[in-house]
């Protein structure tokens, strides 16, 4: 029933290592299932198991080839070495969106907060590490050019695994740049008439109600 990693009756047919432990798994198991199956230590970064939470970050070594990915989206294969990465450390860039008062000076604020973004050296490190195939490098360039709406659009499917942040030699933190772009776009420019109309209607109703209460007193 519940344990997805249970294939009772069959012989394991894939041999790999996870966090230094030799693991025998079955074809078709994801790296998360393989880790559970073997009781691999220090596997605390698992959440959704369907590729949307960005927690199950792993480093993968096949021979001399090293890549990163999401463990719940990668299947067990022979001889692969898997290391579950520790949670990312707190971001170095700080801002609170409520501090932004004026959309006209947003580019100045962006440059204060993310000064490194204009120093991209186009190494593609972010692009190659992104498990969602996002054109991260281009997103960063758009942001540095002040094109926040388009930049944010690039990051639409971002799951905040922050693997691009780890890859970036200039410490640009592309994941947080992307989110900044998306957030300021909504914060300053999303002004839907149907919502605004209803909010005003409700405000008046409330006001009417308090006035009526006052009259009664």
């Amino acid at each position, binding site marked *: *029933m*519940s*344990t*997805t990693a*249970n*294939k009772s009756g069959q012989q394991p047919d894939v041999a790999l290592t996870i*966090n230094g432990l030799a693991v025998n798994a079955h074809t*078709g*198991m*994801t790296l998360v*299932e393989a*880790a*559970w199956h*073997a*009781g691999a*230590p*220090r*596997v*605390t*970064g*698992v*959440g*959704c*198991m*369907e*590729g*949307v*939470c*960005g*927690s199950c970050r792993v480093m993968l070594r096949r021979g001399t080839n090293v890549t990163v990915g999401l463990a719940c*989206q990668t299947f067990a294969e022979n001889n692969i070495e898997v290391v579950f990465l520790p*949670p990312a450390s*707190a971001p170095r860039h*700080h801002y*609170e*969106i*409520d501090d932004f008062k004026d959309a006209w000076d947003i580019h100045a604020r962006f440059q204060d907060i993310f000064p490194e973004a204009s120093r991209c050296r186009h190494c593609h490190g972010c692009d190659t590490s992104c498990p969602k195939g996002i054109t991260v490098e281009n997103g960063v360039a758009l942001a540095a050019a002040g094109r926040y709406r388009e930049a*944010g659009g690039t990051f*639409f*499917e*971002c*799951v*905040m695994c922050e693997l691009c942040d780890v890859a970036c030699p200039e410490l640009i933190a592309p994941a*947080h740049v992307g*989110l900044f772009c*998306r*957030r300021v*776009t*909504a*914060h300053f420019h*999303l*002004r*839907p*008439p*149907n*919502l605004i*109309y*209803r*909010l005003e209607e*409700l405000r008046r109703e409330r006001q009417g109600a308090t006035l009526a209460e006052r009259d009664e007193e």
Partner: protein
Amino acid sequence: MSNGIPLAEALARYRPDADIGLLPELADPKLADMDTLLNTYHPDHLRNSVIKLTVGTNAGDSCQRELAGLLQAEAFIDEADLAGTPVTDIDVLVIGGGGAGCAAALAAAEKGARVLLATKLRLGDSNTVMAEGGIQAAIEPDDTIQRHIQDTLRGGHHAGDPALVSAMAGDGPEVLRWLIRQGMQFEQTPSGDLHTRRAGGMSTARLVHCRDYTGLEMMRVLREAVIQHRSIEVWEQSPAVELLSNEHGQKCVGAVLTSLLDNQLRIVRTRSVILATGGLGRLHLNGFPTSNHLGATGDGLVLAYRIGARLRELDSFQYHPTGLVHPSHLSGKLVTEGVRAAGCLLVNGFGQRFIDELQPRDVVCSAILRECGEGRGVRIDDQRVGVWLDTPRLERANPGLLEKQFPNLMTRTRVSGIDPRTEPLLVHPTLHYQNGGAVIDANGATTVPGLYAVGEVAGGIHGRNRIMGNALLEIISFGRRAGIAATANRDRGPKKVTLEHVNRLRRALTLADMPMTQRAPRILPDYAAGGVWKR
């Protein structure tokens, strides 16, 4: 038990162009038959699945059996464990880092509180991030708050608390404004309105969304807002294993956290604790697979019950009809209801239709269980059985539709080498949502002073059945209410932190002659706990 049609045989028999003919009588239940169907096959009514609680605030009330075992279980720690444990003092402690927890933390911080948010896994690892469909709010011209309230109460079979429902529905438009201010994007119409959809149980279009990634968009924005906030500290990989009470065991004054990284206990002392621990799909009640994230193990219910909070609707859960059976790593994961809404049929192992696919979730779920129970399911092995979701037929009738409208489903199955355009998907009901939870008031306050509960861990809003889109609204509406109320609590704070409430439940269990072999909360399901967490 191996009744059902073996996979290979069923596949050989399956034809996407077979003439299915009219709905057989079995598939078109009359209202009275519908009740029988529910009473016979819905998991809430399974024989032996519900028992009466023996000890605690809800003694005598009905409760799902496995959950009852955890509510009436032994704690992990006693006084001896607390000696020498490091102590942190804070204004407000939020337990759980999904949407409800983040909303509560942000609201408390906006009101000037110093906040500690402790969460079991990574911040944002939650059911919230997985939500696809959308969030309800009455914003269209033909809609009103009143209609939203009525739809919610009707959908919940009138078991919900009208005061809570009207608080939530009334907050709807303001919740959207707050989310936009935090930086959340929504789908818009060409004229700039928020785009709305109508979904099951709604009398008009009310579902606001960010394509099919509403939960992801909400969660990554709130996560970033929390991380960036100067008054909020976040502890990840730090599950709560117990609450703390005052010397009379009457009031909540803090919590004990452990760490999945170093197994070190930590005490947090505070005036207000906000529980936002989410649901319990990963308890796999009645042996069901689940759509929930790994951390959904019902911890909040266990902690709240032990400190004396009243709970409700502990025998009512939502099972989504179409969870995937195969491939095994996606077991229990949802195939969105939209696929059936687009015309996709359900057929059994004999290639017959057996239910009107657009009946309410609980009815369709029961019908699938009937097919499987009576030997008309498709069986992979001893444990896995299901019915076909006939996607190839849908594709034949509407070439290109799957790729265009359900990219999320297509991507997920492609990773596993399955093509729903040519192979039908094997599906089975999956445990999806906890309808009940802690009894709360309009501030999210539980019946225990100092303890708040918000989000899926709280009860009373959805009655005995939740309609789509109300969970995402609830978590922000009540998350913010509780954050504000918890900050306003000007209590002088704890003099003493104790485990008096644990001792009280232990005494009750001993008196009732109940075994104390099981410990709770669960923290992680057994299959995932191996290298991480020793009970």
